[in-house]
């Protein structure tokens, strides 16, 4: 079990490109669900990939309980860190069970093959993600909501302590968006470290234990939802066209609003 994930002085630039991440420092503790927010192109997905060890850092380290991740082989890394990617191909010839079995790759002996414990992990992670009804179907037959739950189920089947989730709610309807965030919150409360890249500030506000705000490759704020869902913090990142408020039960929310708000006539 991993208690702490630390990104320390993370710097990264794509080959022959400008620097995308500038000295990012971020700490995550067991049981936390941190939403990484920021405008398009702020480097959120790149930071997620950097923390996942999928890009080679120019400087800095990602540490799991003090162990640098870059020293680990892909297989060792996958035992601790699971990624829920934003995009996957349609995978029209892959069955749901086989897809979720992919999450067990690092745990399955090449010469033995999947054991009953692996089959049980597939079942239980599909059940945990309310995706049992997807069994036996091809990935391409699933609806957007089902597919997203199956992709999360694969990461759950990986039994990694750290879950890195890239924009899990794009193309999902509001109800399914809530379902996914509920699931992620539950996974965090069970003792995982969950980092979610998202544009859904209001869902992030409801479900996260903390927010991290990235702007132009720099981490500009990290703190509680109440402290960060404020005009002073977010308008410097997202601009002025935001309306802030609180729901009946006191949860902060923000909606986009045109500068000269036009009310419908009549």
């Amino acid at each position, binding site marked *: 079990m991993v208690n702490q994930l630390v990104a320390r002085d993370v710097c990264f630039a794509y080959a022959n490109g400008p620097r995308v991440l500038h000295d990012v420092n971020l700490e995550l503790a067991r049981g936390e669900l941190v939403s990484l927010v920021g405008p398009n192109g702020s480097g959120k997905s790149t930071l997620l990939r950097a923390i996942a060890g999928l890009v080679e850092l120019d400087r800095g380290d990602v540490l799991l309980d003090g162990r640098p991740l870059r020293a680990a082989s892909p297989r060792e890394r996958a035992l601790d860190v699971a990624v829920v*990617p934003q995009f996957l191909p349609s*995978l029209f010839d892959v069955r749901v069970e086989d897809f979720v079995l992919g999450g067990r790759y690092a745990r399955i002996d090449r010469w033995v093959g999947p054991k009953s414990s692996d089959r049980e992990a597939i079942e239980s992670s599909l059940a945990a993600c309310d995706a049992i009804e997807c069994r036996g179907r091809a990935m391409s037959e699933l609806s957007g909501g089902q597919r997203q739950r199956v992709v999360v189920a694969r990461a759950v089947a990986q039994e990694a302590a750290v879950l890195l989730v890239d924009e899990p709610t794009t193309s999902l309807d509001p109800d399914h968006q809530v379902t996914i965030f509920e699931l992620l919150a539950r996974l965090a409360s069970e003792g995982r470290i969950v980092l979610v890249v998202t544009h859904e500030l209001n869902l992030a506000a409801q479900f996260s234990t903390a927010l991290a705000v990235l702007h132009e490759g720099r981490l500009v704020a990290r703190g509680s939802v109440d402290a960060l869902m404020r005009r002073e913090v977010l308008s410097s990142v997202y601009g002025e066209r935001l309306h802030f408020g609180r729901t009946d039960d006191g949860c902060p929310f923000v909606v986009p609003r045109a500068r000269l708000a036009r009310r419908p006539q009549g």
Partner: protein
Amino acid sequence: MTVRTRVLSAPLWYGLLLTGLMAGSVMLGSSALAAGEVLEGSLAMLGLSEPLERSAQAIVELRVWRALCTLGVGASLALSGGLIQGLFRNALASPSLIGVTGGASLGAAFAILIVGGYAPRLVLESSVGLDALLVPLFSFVMALCTTALVAWIASARGRASVTTLLLVGIAVNMCVAGAFAAIQYLTLEEWEISRAILAWTFGTLDDRSGFHCLTVFGGLAVSTLAVPFVARELDLLKGGEEDAEALGVDVAATKRVALVAAALAASAAVAVAGQIAFVGLVVPHLLRLCGQHSYRQLLWHALPAGAAFLLGADVLQRWLFGAGALQPGVMMSVVGGPFFLFLLVRSRREVSTW
């Protein structure tokens, strides 16, 4: 239970099919042989029985080597095709993409030039002579060298993106084809040599010897050893390289092993039989049509299925058209083009953007 029965019976069915095709292949020919003769002659080759009367024994041996070679070539091409399709994540990829076929052609042309008078049909007796060794050897080495060149140019810092690999493959194939065309043009006046080069490009399974068998099965054996190390990995690569890496796959190593194994199998096959198109492309496809979508199964099935496919096609055409039939390489090209188009049209319907 049903699954277990199926797993057990698959080798049995493949075994029966291949044995039947082998028997048919040896019995068919300009002088027909009876089943008893074939059995006795084959046993004599293993030292288990008295040899037949001399000419009959020679015919049996020649046909047995031919049939074995065909099996090996079919299995190698199908395995190589499966590996390449997994590597390129594209069901329309084939071993010729990475320069195997082009390189082998050039190597064969060089060897023919060196020998200076080689033609496959003229060396019935000298099948262990220098010329019979030189052409497979050269085409094998050149095929591997061309693939290595493609991989080397395409890789930066030990990694090769699949798109770059594809584009470099196309470019290198052009260069190699250019050199091959130049040789063909320059030897146009020398009838024997240009005939031999041309004959090689048609692909031939006639006059094969134990040496040819050893080459193709040697390459096949080494490539097959790679399958357990790449099969699961190729399945996970369907989701993209980064996704596979996040799941714990050593993507660079997988690509390297799959590429080497594919090149080795295809090079050995092409070195022995010349250009035989289409087997590497179509056998994995037929297996997918039969429901084998996972590379964990597909790569193993490709071995017997490829062997049966090529030998079956060969037996069928010799049975239909007699001894004057087309070479399997030519026949495959004739049938292969339309089938490839069919696959393209079908895949366009499946995936609208492409």
